[in-house]
């Protein structure tokens, strides 16, 4: 395996500003084990909570038996008087809302659903109490398969709906014009249900401060302000009475982007009992109970001409949304997104797609890194290789024929997605050259000494990020991003504090936002602090999701710093005794025609020696809050081409990744080193989707891979060091030309690896159309093809 090429940006604007590979500020504490996560917080009098969870997927509760001696430490829904269920609606026509109870009321709809809350001085004691509670349940037939769930006569998750469909979405344009295409390939393709598996699970500590008349909830969250919205709805409390603190967060990926019933429970409990309470999700709870992702099914037909020109896509897609619509993203984001993004980065003349968001007796599905794009990319890109095989063309050439070209940018595609900029064909050409397809074809003809089969696969996608008001208002979900705000404040010693409502869960925002501020004000990155993760200290924000932070919070920091700079210039001009029009802000100082004064001096004067300022100085001060939106808020479009070589062991079905190439364009990179890290992490998760991760359910709706011995995650030995190449096409709409980049690494790997495996197996007549591509599935495919050949012979 090759190592990463050393890619320094052509000419970094400065050692610390936009484009510089500044080491991550936060790593000083994180790498020394001094990070502070929810699990590290100790409060006097803290007690632990364990939950009694449903052992069944679908059942009616007849009775909950609590031993007499535990009556005052076990709580059920009957105790939660006045607490409202979690409700995440959408404005999409036909959507059926669900009420997610905080503790189960009459009916249970998923394994692991909260039934009772037990509190004790330690978690072990709380678990002992939970084990003593018995449930009298009447088991109902489980809805365990999203396709069966759509059939008439299926058991119903929410009886009053009359069916199991949260939402049906539809798009059609000119599909009849594709139907006469000479190539027509139809397949069923699916991706497995997964658990997001951040290193740190969820965790909540709730405490009430009577002096402030305020509930404080420490919770590992990607979006503290949204948690406050939701909590205030459920508890019917004023927002001013609620403070959400999200300390260090050990990975989120979407898992920490919902309002948890546990958060509501613990908030209620601390107010009821008067002492702080804590619940830390354990790995089993994570695997069984909390939230899943990725489960898609596609029945898809692609139409093409013999030269590989795409004529159209016709698709019916189903997403298993689980039992409840979770807050704030709802049960429908995923399937509705499938409809709008399935045509990918291609010119597509005709398109029809119908999708179903289906309720089942499984835990809710959440948008996981890449959201619907990973499934969409898997489906479409596998299909493109099958079209190529049918046409007898190299898959890369079929893509090149259809990709949106640079001279077409900005480009509105068939579903009205507005691609802002980029050169998609160039990314693909570089990936093809780097993986050396010609060399691999020669190697394939020769064969391997060890009998393994070599295959090469490509995939390419585009990723809409930082989409704003115009996109989200259409969904009508409980959260619509508007102007992102940031505060910039000079401290009396000339340091800078930045306050943002987004929250880092590993992305290195403390560093990248400081770099933006350095770029604007010239304050040393080491002298900049980023304050985030606390509703009491930061401006409102919808938080960290959708690869939006660099664009939105970066833009907001730049805007606030600009405003602060203007204020500093006014003061500086007074100190220099020149007109404000004659000063500029350069390298952290205000320069006039005959002299300069540093920001540090200005701060010192403003705060500590105001007597040195004339009476008519501008009173605005050295703290500025400002809002930001890109010129267009339809989103930035980053993209990447992935290419991979694999070896498949035809006797065991094992897949080994031999080489992995990523050519990525995320616009202007604020910190290329951090972007590399994002891509590595995403790649690891993409490999998980491709080859390892799967949460299967039995017919009773029981999740089967309930420990990490069964739920396999890729480890260091399973993730290769990819060869990375960056292109940097600026977005025309954003500050500095940046684009969202956080999710892409996780989008393309399943498709690229799937195509590589199918390429390796093509001679055997075997196709893998289901993720993860496990050794078992590969081997069964090979044995079935062998049997079929034998029968035919």
């Amino acid at each position, binding site marked *: 395996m090759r190592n990463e090429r050393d890619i320094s940006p052509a000419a970094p604007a400065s050692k610390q500003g936009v484009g510089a590979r500044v080491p991550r500020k936060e790593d000083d504490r994180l790498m020394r084990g001094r990070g502070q996560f929810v699990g590290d917080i100790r409060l006097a009098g803290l007690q632990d909570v364990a939950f009694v969870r449903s052992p069944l997927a679908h059942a009616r509760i007849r009775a909950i038996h609590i031993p007499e001696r535990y009556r005052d430490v076990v709580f059920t829904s009957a105790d939660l008087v006045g607490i409202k269920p979690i409700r995440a609606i959408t404005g999409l026509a036909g959507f059926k809302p669900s009420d997610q109870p905080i503790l189960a009321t009459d009916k249970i709809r998923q394994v692991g659903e909260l039934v009772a809350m037990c509190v004790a001085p*330690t*978690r*072990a004691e709380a*678990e*002992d109490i939970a*084990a003593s509670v018995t449930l009298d349940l009447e088991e109902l037939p489980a809805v365990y398969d999203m396709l069966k769930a759509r059939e008439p006569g299926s058991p119903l998750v929410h009886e009053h709906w009359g069916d199991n469909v949260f939402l049906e979405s539809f798009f059609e344009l000119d599909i009849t014009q594709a139907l006469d295409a000479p190539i027509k390939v139809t397949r069923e393709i699916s991706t497995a249900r997964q658990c997001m598996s951040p290193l740190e699970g969820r965790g909540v500590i709730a405490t009430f401060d009577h002096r402030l008349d305020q509930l404080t909830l420490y919770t590992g969250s990607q979006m503290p302000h949204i948690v406050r919205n939701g909590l205030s709805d459920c508890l019917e409390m004023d927002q001013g009475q609620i403070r959400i603190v999200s300390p260090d967060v050990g990975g989120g990926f979407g898992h920490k982007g919902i309002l948890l019933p546990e958060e509501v429970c613990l908030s209620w409990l601390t107010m009821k009992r008067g002492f702080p309470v804590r619940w830390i999700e*354990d*790995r*089993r709870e994570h695997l069984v109970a909390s939230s899943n992702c990725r489960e898609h099914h596609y029945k898809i037909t692609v139409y093409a001409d013999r030269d590989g020109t795409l004529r159209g896509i016709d698709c019916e897609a189903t997403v298993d949304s689980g039992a409840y619509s979770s807050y704030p993203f709802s049960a429908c984001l995923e399937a509705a997104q499938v409809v709008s993004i399935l045509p990918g980065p291609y010119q597509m003349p005709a398109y029809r797609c119908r999708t179903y968001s289906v309720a089942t007796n499984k835990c809710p599905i959440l948008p996981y890194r890449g959201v619907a794009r990973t499934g969409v990319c898997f489906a479409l890109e596998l299909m493109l290789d099958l079209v190529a095989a049918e046409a007898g063309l190299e898959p890369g050439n079929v893509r090149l024929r259809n990709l949106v070209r640079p001279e077409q940018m900005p480009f509105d595609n068939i579903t009205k997605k507005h691609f802002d900029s980029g050169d998609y064909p160039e990314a693909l050409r570089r990936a093809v050259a780097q993986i050396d397809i010609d060399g691999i074809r020669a190697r394939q003809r020769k064969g391997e000494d060890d009998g393994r089969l070599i295959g090469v696969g490509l995939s390419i996608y585009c990723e809409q990020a930082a989409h704003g008001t115009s996109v989200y208002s259409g969904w009508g979900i409980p959260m619509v991003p508007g102007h992102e705000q940031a505060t910039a404040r000079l401290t009396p010693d000339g340091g800078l504090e930045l306050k943002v409502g987004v929250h880092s869960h590993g992305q290195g925002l403390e560093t990248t936002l400081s770099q933006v501020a350095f770029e604007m004000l010239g304050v040393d990155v080491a002298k900049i602090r980023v304050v985030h993760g606390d509703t009491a200290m930061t401006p409102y924000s919808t938080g960290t999701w959708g690869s939006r932070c660099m664009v939105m919070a970066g833009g907001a920091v730049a805007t606030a710093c600009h405003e602060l700079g203007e204020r500093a210039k006014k003061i500086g001009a007074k100190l220099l005794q020149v007109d404000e029009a004659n000063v500029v802000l350069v390298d952290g100082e205000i320069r006039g025609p005959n002299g300069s004064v540093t920001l540090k001096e200005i701060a010192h004067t403003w705060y500590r020696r105001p007597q040195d300022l004339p009476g008519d100085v501008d009173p605005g001060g050295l703290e500025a809050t400002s809002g930001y939106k890109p010129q267009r808020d339809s989103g930035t479009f980053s993209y990447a081409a992935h290419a991979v070589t694999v070896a498949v062991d035809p*006797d*065991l079905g*094992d897949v080994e990744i031999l080489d992995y190439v990523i050519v990525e364009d995320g616009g202007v990179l604020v910190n290329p080193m951090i972007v590399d890290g994002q891509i590595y992490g995403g790649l690891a998760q993409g490999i998980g989707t491709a080859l*390892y991760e799967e949460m299967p359910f039995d017919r009773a709706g029981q999740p089967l891979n309930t*420990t990490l*011995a069964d739920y*396999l995650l*890729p*480890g260091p*030995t*399973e993730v290769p060091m990819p060869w990375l190449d960056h292109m940097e096409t600026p977005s025309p709409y954003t500050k500095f030309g940046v684009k969202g980049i956080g999710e892409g690494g996780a989008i393309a790997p399943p498709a690229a690896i799937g195509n590589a495996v199918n390429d390796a197996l093509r001679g055997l007549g075997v196709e893998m159309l289901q993720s993860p591509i*496990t*050794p*078992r599935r590969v*081997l*069964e495919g090979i*044995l079935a093809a062998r049997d079929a050949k034998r029968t035919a012979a």
Partner: protein
Amino acid sequence: MKPAPFAYERPRDVASALAAMAGDGVVKVMAGGQSLGPMLNLRLVAPDTIVDITGLAELKHVEVAGEELVIGACVTHADIEDGRIPDVTRGAMQRVASAIAYRAVRNRGTIGGSLSHADPSADWVSTFAALCATLSLRSAKGARLVAMKDFMLGALESVLQPGEMLEAVRVPVMSPSARWGYVKSCRKTGEFAHAIGAVLIDPEAGRARVVIGAVEAAPIIVDNAEELFGGRITNDFKSRFDARVADTLLSKAGMSDAADRHIHVTILRRAVAEAAA
């Protein structure tokens, strides 16, 4: 995921450990805790008392006695991996040890715990069966020797009686003409095996012991392995290996799934090839 309450005892020697084990209620021995720990946390076991034997020097004792290496039950996988015990198997045990789980597990996991736990997918149950090892068991009532091939009865089941501990493993010194092959199939590094092939083939003696492990039950041990090699064990055993016979053997053993058999036969063929290499 916290264990149910239990009493904890840390005896000073084997005799007091055995006395504690003979006590009332359900008593569990804890060695490295690498299997017992998760089972306690998942509340799959809820013993009244845990007797921690990790620190007992007698159980870490290792010596060569005659034609056998005697390894105390509390010797860890890492001890073997790092060569802290005499090598009587020409590196075979060391290679097996170094591919068990991850280093953190190997630092604590013991051979005694691994065998007593009797997980079909574990490495030592197949390895020691192929190496023709014998186990010393001891209880307050006395001691006995059991051949490894008779020790394991099924998945997580062995001949160990309540109050009885595994004291040591006795491994015969490998003859110079013997050839060893050990291959396992895992989906990722450190994962429990889905198939294990362990072979000890001595062409000079015309003998071979073949073990097919990770079969969801006690490993399949073939003592008269000639039939797998066309009737006799000779120097060309690799080319004489007959996959169809192996497949039939697995069918007869109740492995009904064709893909499972294919994997096990493949792994066995590779173990044979390794022995020949």
